[in-house]
């Protein structure tokens, strides 16, 4: 028992770096997902017919495939086929980000469509261009409304990030497995790994809830909790 615990403490530094890699992976993917998600949403809601068609296919593709298949497809097939030589971490960020964009775009779309159409018409009638109206009238409101749904993206990405193990990204789970093959203590180390993930999960959720409270405007959007 004592030996098992020392297996954890001896490798604590190495595993903590893995936590850093995991969080970086999640953070970057959330960012890519956010930016691409907004672009996809705007394409779907305000874009021409071909943009809607494209977003539909995109969302169908990224939501229909398992994470692990997407990672294999991009890492072993698509990127090498296109001549791109990204490291595993880069591939994981891109794949998780693009996948998250598909989910996030549907959260934002729900929020935009829950705004009354009169807002756009009113903005246009005041002389704003369509783009101005989207940027200063529609997006500020809909992003606030989509925050509760968006907050779900963090735990989803966190748990999905562990799948990057299969292409060898040195995140928490990969490092845990490496330490296990050195020390031969699978139970205690995998349990520690699980508990760290759970702490990251609920710790992050608490921070998000705090931010949610800070950004909330009293009386606005409290009844619009679910946008997905």
């Amino acid at each position, binding site marked *: 028992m004592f030996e098992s615990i020392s297996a954890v403490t001896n490798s604590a530094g190495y595993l903590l770096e893995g936590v850093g890699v995991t969080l970086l992976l999640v953070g970057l993917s959330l960012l890519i997902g956010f930016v691409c998600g907004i672009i996809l949403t705007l394409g779907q809601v305000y874009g021409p017919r071909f943009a809607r068609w494209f977003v539909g296919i995109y969302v*169908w*593709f990224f*939501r*229909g*495939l*398992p*994470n*692990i*298949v997407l990672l*294999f*497809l991009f890492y*072993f*097939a*698509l990127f*090498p*086929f*296109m*001549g791109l030589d990204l490291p595993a971490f880069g591939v994981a960020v891109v794949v998780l980000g693009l996948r998250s964009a598909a*989910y996030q775009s549907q959260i934002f779309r729900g929020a935009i469509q829950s705004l009354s159409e009169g807002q756009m018409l009113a903005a246009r009638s005041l002389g704003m261009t369509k783009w101005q109206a989207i940027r200063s009238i529609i997006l500020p409101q809909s992003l606030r409304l989509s925050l*509760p*749904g968006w907050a*779900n993206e963090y*735990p*989803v990405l*966190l*748990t*999905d*990030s*562990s*799948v990057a*193990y*299969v292409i060898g990204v040195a995140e928490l*789970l990969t490092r845990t*497995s490496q330490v*296990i093959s050195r020390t031969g*203590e*699978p*139970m205690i180390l*995998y*349990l520690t*790994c*699980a508990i760290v*993930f*759970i702490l990251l*999960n*609920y710790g992050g959720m608490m921070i998000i809830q705090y931010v949610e409270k800070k950004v909330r405007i009293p009386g606005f959007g409290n009844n619009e*909790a*679910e946008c*997905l």
Partner: protein
Amino acid sequence: MTDSINATGADGGLGGFFQNLTDSIISQIPFWQDVLLPALWDGLWVTMQLVVMTAPLGFLLGLLIAVSRVYGSAPVKWLAQLYVIFFRGCPLLVLLFILYFGLPSVGIVLGSFMSALVGFILCNSAYNSEYLRGALQSIKRGQLLAARSLGMTKMQGVMYVVVPQALRRALPGVSNEFIYLIKYSSLAYVVAVIELTGAAKIIASKYFMYFEAFAAVGIFYLVIVTIATIGIHRLEMKYAIPGVSGAVGKVSKGH
């Protein structure tokens, strides 16, 4: 003509990319017919087994946990909550590793298929219990009180009055989770179950046909998920009571 196309194909670019793609697909028809597709059909069968066995068990266990969380005594509630926190917070992959690599070190050997199955059931039930809990809590308290006043025990009231209504309301969430289950069943590959993804990975590494194998397995998943989505949509339409079964409270989205 063909030479010029091949020339553009050689120096890359988007046109070359698609040219390479079609070329490689046409020249590999025998490989698809004799090697890839048979392996994937076998894999599909294993995936189906995993999904079909997990879904009902995960649902029933989820229902049990949801009922204990809403109607149980204090320690039962607490235990059920701990269960949900652990199995929702822990990545499924880590859970599979604990079951497959961790448990044998304390003397419990499950084997790869069983560890995958147990892992999926635990994860699936934790998520389902959240949807079901939302649905149970959305049924008015008066219903249970009315059932009690008619002489039913609390158990009877929950089983015959509250749960049947709650199930209808939980249907969208639970069926969504079924779609997720199809997708995360691919994780069984890491504990050496040769399901769809595993079969593709083996063929890909053996014949060095990564693009073909993963493109094919991708098409398999897209077809299954699309069929399941359409089927579930039909089911939801069938069981929706106009004006009654709407969205449940805030529930998590899963994977």
